[in-house]
């Protein structure tokens, strides 16, 4: 089933400019929302059951409703720090249709009663931030951002804030600290950002794709949107497929589509003569699945039932030519580099996991090391302020569980001094 809400004619020339966007009905949803009133906008968002597209999958409408009511300074922060390995969907939206995001931000801020908003975009996305800056200027001149928007009495300021390269700033509280001009260290939760976020004020934080979906929900109605997808995973989702596939890229799917259809049907599957060995369904933080799981429907709950998570919707396919140790090593080294160092289990756990993987490769490891490594992962999960450590522990733990035989073969072959590259064939 195909349905294009976000990607509709996305390569239309000039779509990143206000004129073309308005020409196809852009900012119509904002006009409609401003006439409905904030309560009705909120109930449409709740009716849509839209789940956050950044990774956690929390219902957006609920998140908005958690913000305290009343005349206090409230903030809306758009998380555009897309750094989860394998994810590149927000980049496409910001680059090609930035006004949809801005429109979504204005509508969401209206529902939440926020008067200041920020887009925290990762510093590496230079082109996308430049495009957003231009779009923002156009929106401001047209009166969609600023004082008394379209005569509704709602005012909103918006700033595009560029980060400077740190994975942890995609974590919502790390992002807030970074936006306040500090090192991006995560905070203790609770208090949650909805109560005490940016500058200690109530803050709504949403992902780019989530906010970009808001105009479509207002236009078609929340109940109508909820008819798409499955009962608990409504709507369409952008999926970034990468790794060993013939047509890597972004695809818009209806949630609940079979994973095989995405990996083989849309992305073309692995190259000629190769088979899927394992795949990450939701970025490198998600526990891996194998070829046996290809028929699992791609939605939040089916993925959770399969022992993994939909995460940011980034499928990374690994084919059978790659040793699992290489995959584990890349993942572990990444999280070791990105750990902010605040919590001991994460800082030390990521470091020791890398060291133990290196032992396997150098032939110094024993099968007992796999058990130790698995227990290290268990001791990280749930014991830190944020989930960065868990994000390494979950995939590494799943790799040890699912490819134990290959790890052992690698260990044995390395001990005997076999040349690199024979391990995958051995299994």
């Amino acid at each position, binding site marked *: 089933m195909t349905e294009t809400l976000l990607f509709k004619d996305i390569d239309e020339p000039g779509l990143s400019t206000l004129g073309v966007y308005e020409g196809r009905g852009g900012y119509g949803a904002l006009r409609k929302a401003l006439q409905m009133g904030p309560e009705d906008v909120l109930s449409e968002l709740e009716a849509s059951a839209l789940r956050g597209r950044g990774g956690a999958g929390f219902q957006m409408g609920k998140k908005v409703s958690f913000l305290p009511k009343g005349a206090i300074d409230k903030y809306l922060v758009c998380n555009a720090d897309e*750094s989860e390995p394998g994810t590149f969907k927000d980049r496409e939206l910001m680059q090609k249709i930035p006004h949809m995001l801005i429109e979504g931000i204005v509508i969401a801020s209206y529902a939440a009663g926020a008067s200041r908003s920020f887009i925290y975009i990762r510093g590496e996305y230079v082109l996308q931030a430049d495009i957003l800056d231009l779009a923002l200027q156009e929106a401001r001149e047209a009166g969609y951002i600023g004082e008394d928007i379209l005569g509704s009495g709602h005012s909103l300021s918006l700033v595009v804030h560029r980060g400077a390269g740190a994975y942890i700033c995609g974590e919502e509280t790390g992002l807030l600290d970074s936006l306040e001009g500090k090192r991006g260290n995560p905070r203790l939760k609770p208090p949650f950002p909805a109560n005490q976020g940016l500058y200690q004020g109530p803050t709504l934080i949403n992902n780019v794709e989530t906010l970009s979906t808001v105009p479509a929900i207002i236009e078609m109605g929340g109940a109508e949107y909820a008819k798409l997808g499955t009962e608990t995973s409504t709507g369409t989702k952008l999926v970034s497929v990468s790794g060993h596939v013939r047509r890597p890229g972004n695809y818009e799917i209806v949630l609940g589509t079979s994973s095989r259809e995405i990996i083989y049907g849309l992305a073309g599957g692995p190259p000629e003569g190769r088979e899927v060995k394992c795949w990450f369904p939701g970025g490198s933080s998600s526990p891996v699945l194998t070829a046996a799981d290809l028929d699992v429907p791609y939605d939040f709950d089916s993925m959770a039932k399969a022992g993994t998570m939909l995460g940011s919707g980034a499928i990374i396919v690994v084919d059978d030519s790659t040793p699992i140790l*290489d995959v584990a090593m890349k993942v572990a080294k990444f999280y070791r580099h990105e750990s902010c160092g605040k919590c001991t289990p994460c800082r030390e756990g990521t470091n020791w996991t890398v060291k133990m993987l290196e032992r396997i490769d150098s032939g110094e490891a024993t099968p007992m090391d796999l058990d130790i490594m698995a227990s290290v992962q268990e001791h990280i999960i749930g014991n830190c302020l944020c989930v960065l450590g868990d994000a390494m522990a979950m995939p590494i733990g799943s790799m040890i569980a699912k490819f134990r035989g290959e790890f052992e073969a690698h260990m044995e072959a390395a001990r005997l001094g076999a040349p690199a590259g024979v391990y995958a064939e051995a299994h």
Partner: protein
Amino acid sequence: MTTDPSFEQGARASGWDVPADLEKDPATVPGVGGSPSVPVPAELRTRIEAHMALYPDPKSAAIPALHAAQQLHGWCSPEAIEQAACVMGVTPAYLDSVATFYDMLDTEPVGRHAIYVCTNISCSLCGADDLYAAIRDAAGDDEEFNVRAFECLGACDIAPMASVDGVYVGPLSLDDVPRLLEEVRAGREVLAEKQLARRLVADPHANSREFPEHPVQSATTSAPAETHPANSGEEQP
């Protein structure tokens, strides 16, 4: 797997094994409370002050201020940090703590042209480690270049890829490396036909009409070459 200095220390929490200098004077804000002020170039001051005005708390401008100072000085040198601290009214140590946290802020002198090669999982599966080694070798000890293995740059659809002075190019093959460096040296547009800015979305259902040419973001400086011959023949996938 990689010998890049940014990975050698392992974690982001660097400096834990460097002893504190107890002889040092306490940190002061330049120009406040009798501490000597630092001359700041007018243009830098204007830029930082413009950023500070955007936020309810001017401290939020720390990263933009450091970006601006880095652009002027080439790296976040002690001098650059002092100047930014003087404008922002914070201690240089505070900005130092920020600068050391982020990968794009350099606290050591680096080459003028930043080439970030993504070596994370998706790119690595497509041969990024060899690409990184090739670019490093080709750049040699040319001090113009700052070649770094970088974490996921969010462009796995063009893996293996690199960000060259902020411009995303890919998929790169080893044969592209000499031309890439040559074009950077000459100050020309880098691998025009391989720039991400000109790529159509992969989803075949996305576009109901044919858009044979990518809408070039002509208003931005990153993709100006509408007339580049390499840009004319791109078909929708």
